[in-house]
């Protein structure tokens, strides 16, 4: 029994974390939103980088091999397993990488990089360059999609990992804000109500994250309970991100409600990912069926 990560996995995570900290600040995320209108308004308003910087994030991830992380080395990938993928995807969630990373890393690359002849007509590397193409060519979203079950579970796992990363980011942003922001002459983070909101957020994170890591292990080892474990991970991660988002917005007050502040970039991503590849209720139901409940 050893519930922690290998040096290799941690080194990969560090590398991705460093890359994204540098290449994917909030301005890059905002650049993926529609341009503001003539009055400078719209959800994409605020500090934004260029389309080139946005595209560069994808190319950097591709160059580093992250997009083919699950593809065997023999087929040009990095040959890591789902445990490493979960760690890396958590990092992409933390910065809200505005590209179809889960769809590529978890679904397309392994499927296309699979040596079975009928699936490898297209090289995964080629596809991985453009998430948009991928997104349209495969109809894999949501329960009942066409992907086979493993691909679906891998995508649900990857999404759960991103939700953990997003939750951490929203919590970090909020902790920093409530220490800084003063009302009634003191930092609002010294009010017990604010403390308890954020303790609740931290509590959900503490117990959702190991469930995601375990689901990764179950997939990596083709455990017979893998589908159940993935569903548990996605259900807990979705509910966690939802609660953390609510607490984050509430503790920010008005400023969290504006598009020029960064919080909404993570909040809206979390709202979308909560429901994609099966929402919490759908996955809870699947856990129930596995348990005979």
């Amino acid at each position: 029994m050893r519930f922690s990560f290998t040096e290799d996995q941690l080194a990969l995570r560090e590398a991705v974390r460093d890359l994204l900290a540098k290449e994917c600040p909030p301005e890059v995320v905002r650049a993926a939103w529609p341009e503001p209108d003539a009055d400078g308004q719209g959800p994409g308003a605020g500090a934004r980088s260029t389309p080139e910087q946005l595209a560069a994030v994808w190319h950097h991830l591709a160059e580093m091999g992250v997009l083919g992380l699950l593809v065997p080395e023999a087929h040009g990938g990095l040959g890591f397993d789902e445990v490493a993928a979960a760690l890396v995807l958590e990092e992409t969630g933390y910065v809200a990488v505005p590209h179809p990373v889960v769809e590529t890393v978890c679904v397309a690359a392994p499927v296309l990089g699979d040596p079975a002849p009928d699936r490898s007509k297209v090289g995964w590397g080629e596809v991985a360059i453009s998430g948009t193409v991928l997104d349209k060519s495969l109809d894999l979203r949501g329960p009942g999609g066409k992907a086979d079950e493993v691909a679906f579970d891998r995508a649900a796992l990857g999404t759960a990992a991103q939700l953990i990363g997003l939750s951490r980011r929203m919590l970090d942003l909020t902790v920093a804000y409530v220490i800084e922001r003063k009302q009634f002459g003191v930092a609002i983070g010294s009010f017990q109500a604010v403390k308890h909101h954020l303790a609740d957020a931290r509590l959900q994170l503490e117990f959702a994250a190991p469930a995601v890591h375990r689901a990764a292990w179950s997939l990596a080892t083709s455990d017979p309970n893998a589908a159940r474990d993935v569903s548990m991970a996605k259900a807990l991660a979705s509910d966690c991100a939802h609660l953390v988002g609510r607490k984050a917005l509430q503790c920010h007050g008005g400023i969290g409600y504006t598009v020029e502040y960064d919080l909404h970039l993570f909040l809206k991503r979390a709202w979308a990912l909560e429901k994609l590849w099966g929402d919490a209720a759908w996955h809870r139901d699947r856990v129930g069926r596995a348990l005979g409940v």
Partner: protein
Amino acid sequence: MDLTWSEHEEAFRADVRGWLEANLAEWKAAHGGDVPSGDTREGFAIHLEWERRLFDARWAVVSWPEQYGGRDASLWEWLIFEEEYYRAGGPQRVTQNGIFLLAPSLFEFANDAQRDHVLTRMASGEDRWCQGWSEPNAGSDLASLTSKATRVDGGWRLNGQKTWTTRGAFCSHLFGLFRTDPEAERHRGLSYLLVPLDLEGITVRGFGRLDGDEGFAEVFFDDAFLPDDALPGGVVLGEVGAGWSVAMSTTSSERGLTLRSPGRFLATARRLIEGWQALPESERAERGDLRHRVIQAWMEAEAYQLQTLQTVTGTVEGRPAGAESSLVKLWWSELDVSLHETALDVLGPAALLDGPWAKGYEFSLSGPIYAGTNEVQRNVVAERVLGLPRK
């Protein structure tokens, strides 16, 4: 106890309903059916047309005296109006900050000249009023605000910044608090001023809300001169230096009924039920957890209606509510979030990307924040309703 409406009230209801049936579809159709949000520049103008239509038929401010465009309607009739308005799918009231927040203070504190000039023009949409409470460093802690009005010959010199003024970028006037006695601290030395936004030295900058609309504005005052005669009857509401108590009468109505009548939530709950009923039978069978949430949301909307009827009875009979208005604000703001969360879970991922529920959800999340955060409201309930020690 008598929980039935009188013949007179039923007739009033029929009038409202009839008028809305005749006018609402027409107004929507005139704008291509899909009217943009009143919190966008384009949508605001279209909504003003609707306000004008309401005003012309004397439905804009039913509870006001006839001389200002109202109908002298009772509180009961006002509730009926709201119920019918939202049941029919009436649009947001872009003039509401003036009508619901400034007007009650005008009725209580203004002189005749101020009332005569401001009220009717506000009700018709000729003047559009936004509120200037919050400042970048004074949100929940309103008493810490620092925008100044300095007395000069023939008027006031304004300096400072207001923020979070809803729809401020589309408005013509602002009402708000300014520090007129620089020596006084916190609640003292503030005055309630009425300010045309076209004065030299005032800059209004709209900015985006979570839902993407330009719903907020910042207002900068850079040595702007506000003449005493900028409005008939003067620009100070109430006494100079008594701004806090004038404002508090306003924020108390903000928390209470007028801002969010039960009719709104009953209408939302009904739409939620319709959304549920529209799901395929097989899906409904699988989502028993969600079914209970739908029913619970309806019950909570209904409970709000009932608590309102009890409170209004008390008001009519001379037993006004006190700090209980904080309970009302807690209830409707948290109910609104749960109605929308439930609806999004009913409708699935597609609803999240677009559509009225997604927009409504984003808006509902502001409920527990504005008009006094729910944390502040819970303090008020504990201290003023239950009598717990302030510290």
